[in-house]
């Protein structure tokens, strides 16, 4: 295993926080709804992968947790953080999608049902090991002991009653092909998962297409939400995250569509100017480089024809 070596090397030189404390501070954003907000940076030794928003809803009988974070340590810290605001037991963990920063804390919830869309479980089974290995490479010892734990229950889109609290589940596809969004109808809080990034550039590995993603956003925005929790970035009570996402997705799409029509090389596209209106969006250059790698081949092929004879 390559990461063991990497870990051993990092172990000596590491200047990270010696106590590996994520410092999770639950913040109440609505009646019974709590948020743990991560940074809008990239995975790094100094954040332990805490670049993600997770949350939980305290119902009459217990706690529904949404996403488990990037590591076993995070999952355990999340359990402790929940215990600081309620004595009620954790009832279940729901996963918005299979990306490592949202699911690698699952071990800390092995005592309760872990639920996700069926396709999310399939994607995690397929890609989980490789994603975990990559996380070890990126954030090092924060990951110690972390293993992939697959969901034990399947969620289906529709209305669901959890201990008297009505939740609307949407099964969408734009970010990974299997993306769960959760609207808490009681509070109007929409947990959008990574269908929404705000002030942080969106990531595209596994997207079925930016057009699919744009259609998902329309559907999400039309819901009766009062507050939005994006997968990454600050909470909002206006439609600003939707506006920014649509603008950004449209820009990304046009960069690649126009580039392909002009015969641009990938190496040229990754250097295009990022419009000033996205100056506040963190990691836009980094994610542009990644998105061109993920998506440009499709745009190129749409321009090409068979020319062999």
């Amino acid at each position: 295993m390559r990461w063991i070596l990497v870990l051993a090397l990092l172990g000596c030189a590491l200047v990270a926080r010696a106590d590996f404390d994520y410092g999770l501070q639950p913040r109440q954003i609505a009646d019974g709804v709590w948020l743990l907000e991560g940074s809008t940076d990239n995975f790094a030794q100094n954040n332990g992968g805490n670049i993600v928003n997770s949350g939980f809803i305290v119902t009459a009988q217990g706690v529904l947790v949404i996403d488990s974070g990037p590591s076993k340590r995070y999952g355990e810290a999340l359990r402790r953080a929940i215990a600081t605001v309620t004595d009620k037991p954790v009832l279940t963990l729901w996963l918005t999608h299979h990306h490592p920063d949202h699911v690698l804390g699952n071990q800390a919830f092995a005592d309760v049902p872990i639920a996700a869309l069926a396709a999310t479980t399939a994607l995690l089974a397929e890609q989980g090991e490789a994603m975990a290995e990559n996380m070890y490479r990126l954030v090092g010892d924060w990951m110690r002991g972390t293993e992939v734990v697959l969901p034990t229950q399947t969620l289906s889109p529709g209305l669901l009653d959890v201990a008297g609290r009505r939740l609307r589940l949407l099964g969408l596809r734009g970010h990974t092909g299997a993306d769960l969004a959760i609207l808490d109808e009681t509070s109007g809080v929409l947990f959008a998962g990574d269908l929404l990034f705000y002030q942080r550039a969106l990531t595209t590995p596994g997207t079925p297409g930016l057009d699919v993603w744009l259609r998902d956003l329309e559907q999400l925005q039309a819901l009766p939400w009062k507050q939005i929790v994006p997968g990454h970035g600050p909470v909002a009570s206006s439609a600003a995250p939707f506006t920014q996402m649509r603008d950004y997705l449209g820009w990304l799409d046009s960069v690649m569509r126009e580039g392909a029509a002009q015969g641009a090389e990938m190496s040229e596209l990754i250097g295009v100017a990022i419009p000033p209106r996205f100056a506040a969006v963190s990691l836009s250059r980094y994610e542009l480089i990644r998105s061109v790698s993920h998506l440009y081949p499709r745009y190129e092929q749409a321009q090409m024809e068979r020319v062999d004879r």
Partner: protein
Amino acid sequence: MDGRSLLLLALLAWPCTGWSVEGDPVTSVMWNYHHARLLDGAPFVFDEQVRVLLPPFAEDARQVPILVDASAYRGQVVRILAWAELNPIAQIFDFAPGAEVLPRLAIRIRIEQATPIRAAVLTRDGIWHVGSSYIDAAGGGCTAPSVVRAEAGWEERLGQVLGKRFALADSSRLRVQIAHPMDNGLVGGIPEFYLNQAELRDGNGKVLATLELFPSVSENPTLSLEVQGEGETELWLRDNNGNEFKAAL
């Protein structure tokens, strides 16, 4: 000592010794080795005018886009060699653009780990002008299982070419993608099977440029060349099993 043990030795020595060469714009312990092996130790200069454009990191180590541009030496270029220093198969291409073809080539490659990428441009005065860049990578691109071979019916698509000609200000850009697994012999006991020769020809069959390819080139190779004039061109390709393919652009 064979090449692989030399490579290994060099890697082990990396943290302790400074084998890097004066004036080298990238950190490298392999320059002397490749200079001797690929350029026969001939006179060279590190030269920023030979541009090696690539991403700072490999998002997909199996498909890393590189663009080598020696337009600054247009009219003087004899050959362009490109290689990825720390790849198990270092060489990428050996390109001889004729008078009508620009000394510029874009291609996608596999890399096994973070590595310097070099493009050495031989000009008529016998000097190698060496452009350099560095790419970071999680790695494994050379030993990853084939994506092409996992697709049903890939044999029927072998040698199919997708392409398009794009009109630029005073030339045309020819972009193609050729269906081929480009097996490099490092994966799952599958022997080397890759496109190793290409020629760009004009309508009368005259050779405009020759290109030798190595199996560090990605599966389903993507190539981009620039040629002067409006005339129809033909791209001829051959793999190491003797299969020949042609495309008109």
